[in-house]
């Protein structure tokens, strides 16, 4: 900690309040807190998310130059906005010159008058939501939507996003620039969708947040089992959304789902970093704080559902996750309730992954033979590259005492997984089954 000062004067007081000379990390932390609102307001102002981000970045560079000497300003958001606004005015002047030179009107540059941002302060929250809709625009691929959302709403650097998605920084940089260009080219607008379109677009946003979470939760190619940074970002996005769209049950459901799943993050690996399956997890390591938040979000979703708001796959998955969270010991799990929820989920969002999970639930609720019936009904071609079906089959066969077949199933699962930690878990189970067979 820095030395206490007794000097007066604003700069000195700011420093005293900061307690120390702000480091680059402190400046970045302050900037990140403001970046979504900043980029959103600048997008409203310029009509172009790429330009908005450039202006926000300029403001960040200015902050990195000045704050380490001057201290972090009392209101960093206002400071950044003023700085960015000054750059925006330059931008508009350049655009105006360009427009005079060229007969062609570029879209988004029609109104070159600088809008009065101070009058728009009340819209900041709506603008962040508009920014999310824009980042998750249907013109973009899901991967690009995720990257752009993390960049512009989450305030992450390209390096951080590239690390999260395990791709080279240069290709992530290209993906993000391409996405921004695509938005410009497709004429995507900074807007608030209404009516039926709103629900559809909202569903796209939820899907992106969920994608970010699952990417972090089950790393498919990394030696690591999970990458919690992405999970954490996704939870933050879900919490932001729940505040911005408090009237939709599925938004709260997604928050509930992510909080509940994340509560188990640290129990999913043992001290050697090896994966631990749900039923074997030390439930004392589950994060009770997150479970409580998840339950509260689920209760809000239920309340909204009661007043007629639609619920769907996130609600059902959250309800399933809550059933697990409520079981103090694995053997207390209400598998019949979970099997019922999977039946509904299979109707609402049919797909082979749900069916595999339904097979697990049936196996626990009604016995391994019942689980195998569900599993056998899944077309062989579906999930051919996934270790999930054979791994579940191996588990059900083990419990039926069919150890030879179980060992084969676990070996088949180990052969297709691309996750090293998962492979060693499956190989261990195959060996155990082979031992039990002899």
């Amino acid at each position, binding site marked *: 900690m820095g030395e206490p000062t007794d000097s007066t004067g604003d700069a000195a*007081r700011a420093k005293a*309040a*900061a*307690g120390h000379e702000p*480091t680059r*990390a*402190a400046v*970045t*932390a*302050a900037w*990140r*807190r403001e970046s*979504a609102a900043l980029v959103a307001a600048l997008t409203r102002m310029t009509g172009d998310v790429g330009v908005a981000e450039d202006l926000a970045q300029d403001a960040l560079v200015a902050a990195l130059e000045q704050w380490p000497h001057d201290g*972090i300003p*009392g209101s960093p958001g206002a400071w950044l906005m003023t700085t960015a606004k000054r750059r925006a005015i330059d931008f508009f002047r350049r655009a105006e010159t360009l427009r005079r030179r060229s007969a062609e009107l570029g879209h988004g540059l029609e109104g070159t008058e600088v809008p009065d941002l101070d009058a728009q302060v009340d819209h900041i*929250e709506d603008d962040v939501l508009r920014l999310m809709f824009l980042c998750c625009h249907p013109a973009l691929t899901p991967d690009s939507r995720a990257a752009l959302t993390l960049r512009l709403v989450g305030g992450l650097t390209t390096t951080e996003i590239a690390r999260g998605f395990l791709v080279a920084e240069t290709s992530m940089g290209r993906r993000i620039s391409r996405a921004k260009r695509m938005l410009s080219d497709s004429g995507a607008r900074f807007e608030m969708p209404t009516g039926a379109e709103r629900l559809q677009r909202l569903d796209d946003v939820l899907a992106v947040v969920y994608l970010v979470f699952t990417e972090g939760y089950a790393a498919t190619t990394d030696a690591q089992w999970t990458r919690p*940074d992405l999970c*954490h970002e996704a*939870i*933050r*996005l*879900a*919490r*932001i959304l729940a*505040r*911005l769209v408090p009237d939709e049950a599925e938004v709260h459901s997604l928050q509930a789902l992510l909080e509940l799943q994340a509560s188990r*993050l*640290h*129990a999913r690996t043992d001290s050697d970093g090896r994966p631990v399956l749900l039923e074997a997890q030390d439930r*004392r*390591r*589950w*994060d009770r*704080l997150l479970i409580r*938040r998840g339950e509260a979000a689920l209760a809000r979703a239920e309340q909204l559902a009661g007043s007629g708001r639609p619920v769907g796959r996130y609600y059902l998955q959250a309800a399933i996750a809550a059933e697990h969270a409520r079981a103090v010991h694995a053997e207390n799990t209400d598998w019949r309730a979970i099997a019922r929820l999977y039946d509904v989920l299979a109707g609402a969002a049919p797909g082979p992954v749900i069916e595999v999970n339904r097979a697990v639930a049936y196996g626990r609720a009604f016995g391994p033979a019942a689980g195998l019936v569900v599993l056998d009904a899944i077309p062989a071609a579906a999930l051919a590259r996934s270790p999930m079906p054979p791994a579940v089959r191996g588990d059900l066969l083990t419990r039926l005492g069919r150890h030879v077949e179980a060992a084969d199933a676990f070996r088949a699962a180990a052969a297709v997984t691309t996750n090293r930690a998962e492979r060693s878990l499956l190989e261990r189970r195959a060996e155990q089954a082979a031992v039990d067979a002899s």
Partner: protein
Amino acid sequence: MHYMVFVKMAEVDVEPPAALVEAMGAEMERGFASGTLIQVGGLYATSYRTEFRVRAGETTSTDGPFTEAKEEVGGFAIIDVRDHAEAVENARRMAELHATHWPDWDGAVEARRISGPDEGPSASDA
């Protein structure tokens, strides 16, 4: 990672200025909206406190108020942040709000990392 932010001050019989209360409310709203703030709480005066002290295997209890204490925890916030710098920034804002809206205030804002199942405090965190 989770941090607990404490607000500490001498126990005085003075209401905080309305401007501070309002500014703190706005700050909290922003914290919840950004997904950072998990929980906040203000603590009652020490006249509502009971302390059990253990010394040499003996337990004695004392009821508040504790007039001799120089500083007491008056409130706390649990925050969910990406890194230490972000926790520090949150605490700094809290301090800044007091400095701006209650210039006479003499107290401290402290950010402490909460040890979870995943993360224990290490020596280097001190």
